[in-house]
């Protein structure tokens, strides 16, 4: 066995040892990516454009939930039912704040361009401008250092699977993620709201002939993307704190996840997020933690080179 063989076998040994821990952590991160990726994919589905200000939608939810959690929890240590309630509240606050921010961006940065039939490049510039404005504003108002969200629960190990510790933080994310995505999937497949989004994604003009209000539907996709992004902002902030630049890396990774799953495809965004989260997590066994971010962008480059339509392809229109 050569030197490289030794290198690999040593690292695979680490991987085997830590497998379950890495998997759970990777899935949890993956759900956060997926929550943010939903916003990219929904907006792309109806407008065929990438909302590059989505990182700041994510940040808004992080900050809003930080302030609410700080006001309610302060230095206390909630447990039991109070913890459950606080987590739900955090998700709702983050989701509401980000939905509001998303709606505002749609009105201010996108709708005026849409009404003037502006070229795609104009949207990109508008989004980048809005994004710079917002995160610098946050930096100015809230300081340029990382703020920890007071924890709504005691982050103890809840159980161990095959020797790996599964902490409360991961359980919170996994449960929230599953509930949120199952709900979204049902809404898009079965409700009138979901049908209007799919109709606009497939053929906006014909949707309007059916009585679908296009402007309202577009606003709704921003709101749903905002709710998910804000929930992600809160859950991410619980683990990593909130800071004015917090949106940058998670949003780029979520964008990668959306492209990986097939941009415009809702289930694809979830699958892409989970794959990316787990891939990053497992790569810890092979590269130093500082290089983890490189993994996501290597994946993005590879998909763009070899399968630009992603795993599931583009199909927001479909119910399944």
């Amino acid at each position, binding site marked *: 066995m050569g030197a490289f063989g030794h290198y690999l076998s040593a690292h695979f040994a680490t991987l085997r040892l830590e497998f379950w821990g890495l998997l759970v952590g990777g899935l949890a991160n993956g759900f956060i990516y997926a929550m943010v990726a939903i916003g990219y994919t929904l907006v792309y589905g109806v407008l065929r454009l990438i909302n590059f200000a989505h990182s700041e939608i994510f940040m808004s939810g992080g900050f809003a939930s930080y302030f609410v959690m700080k006001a309610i929890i302060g230095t206390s240590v909630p447990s039991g039912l109070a913890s459950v309630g606080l987590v739900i509240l955090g998700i709702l606050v983050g989701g509401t704040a980000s939905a509001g921010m998303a709606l505002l961006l749609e009105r201010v940065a996108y709708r005026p361009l849409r009404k003037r039939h502006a070229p795609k490049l104009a949207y990109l510039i508008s989004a980048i401008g809005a994004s710079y404005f917002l995160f610098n504003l946050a930096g100015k108002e809230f300081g340029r250092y990382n703020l920890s969200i007071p924890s709504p629960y005691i982050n103890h190990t809840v159980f161990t699977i095959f020797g790996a510790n599964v902490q409360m933080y991961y359980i919170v994310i996994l449960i929230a993620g599953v509930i949120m995505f199952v709900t979204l999937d049902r809404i898009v497949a079965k409700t009138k709201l979901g049908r209007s989004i799919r109709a606009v994604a497939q053929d906006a*003009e014909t949707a309007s*002939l059916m*009585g*679908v209000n296009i402007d309202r539907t577009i606003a709704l996709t921003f709101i749903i993307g905002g709710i998910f992004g804000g929930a992600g902002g809160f859950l991410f902030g619980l683990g990593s704190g909130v800071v004015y630049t917090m949106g940058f890396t998670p949003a780029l990774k979520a964008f990668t996840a959306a492209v990986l799953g097939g941009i415009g495809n809702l289930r694809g965004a979830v699958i892409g997020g989970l794959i990316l989260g787990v891939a990053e997590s497992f790569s810890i066994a092979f590269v130093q933690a500082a290089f983890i971010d490189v993994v996501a962008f290597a994946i993005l480059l590879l998909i763009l080179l070899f399968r630009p339509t992603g795993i599931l392809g583009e199909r927001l229109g479909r119910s399944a």
Partner: protein
Amino acid sequence: MMLQVNDAVVRYGAITALHGITFEINQGEIVTLLGANGAGKSTTLRMLSGLHAPATGKIIFEGQDITNTKAHQFVALGIAHVPEGRRIFPQMTVEENLEMGAFTRSGSFSDDMDRMYETFPILKERRKQLGGNLSGGEQQMLAIGRALMGSPRLLLLDEPSMGLAPMIVETIFRIIGEIRDSGTTVLVVEQNAAQALRLADRGYVMENGRIVFSDKASNLLHDERVRAVYLGESVEGT
């Protein structure tokens, strides 16, 4: 009078597609709009469903000024549009496409759904298939069925026979007649002038964004100008 269009002008940016057209449609009629490619027939229908508001002029529907009504409000008014090229939602099933037609309706519409499947048995067979996988004729039936699901009083049809085999065209025209007989007024744009005129009560002939003449369909069918330009050979065999 059901619909009255008064001196309507429609522009696409710098291009004027309709130079002030005036016409009307009476309750219970089938009216056909004839004209060469680019004459402005589709633009006229698009104006009548709010996709392009006229720059000047007036549209009155059942006594109500609808000149600046938005596209998504038209179904509720009672006007449904079967667009050029059918525009089926390709990734929705046949059933979902029909449901889209009833989007603005509240309450149950399963009776109408059953009636559509009775009128178009093939759609019942294909219920669970994606719209994008249907044949052209099936898509046209679906497009008509979808529009009827909104229970319109005025139905706008843009070239319903385009690209279809003669037998399917027969079926489509028979169904258009049935739709009128069941009380829905029809405005139909057709390339297939002979067949359209035999079905219609009246016709308008368009040229370069203007209505150049109009008459009872039976007269147009024998009009020299129409025969020369729009009927060509197609009238011979009849």
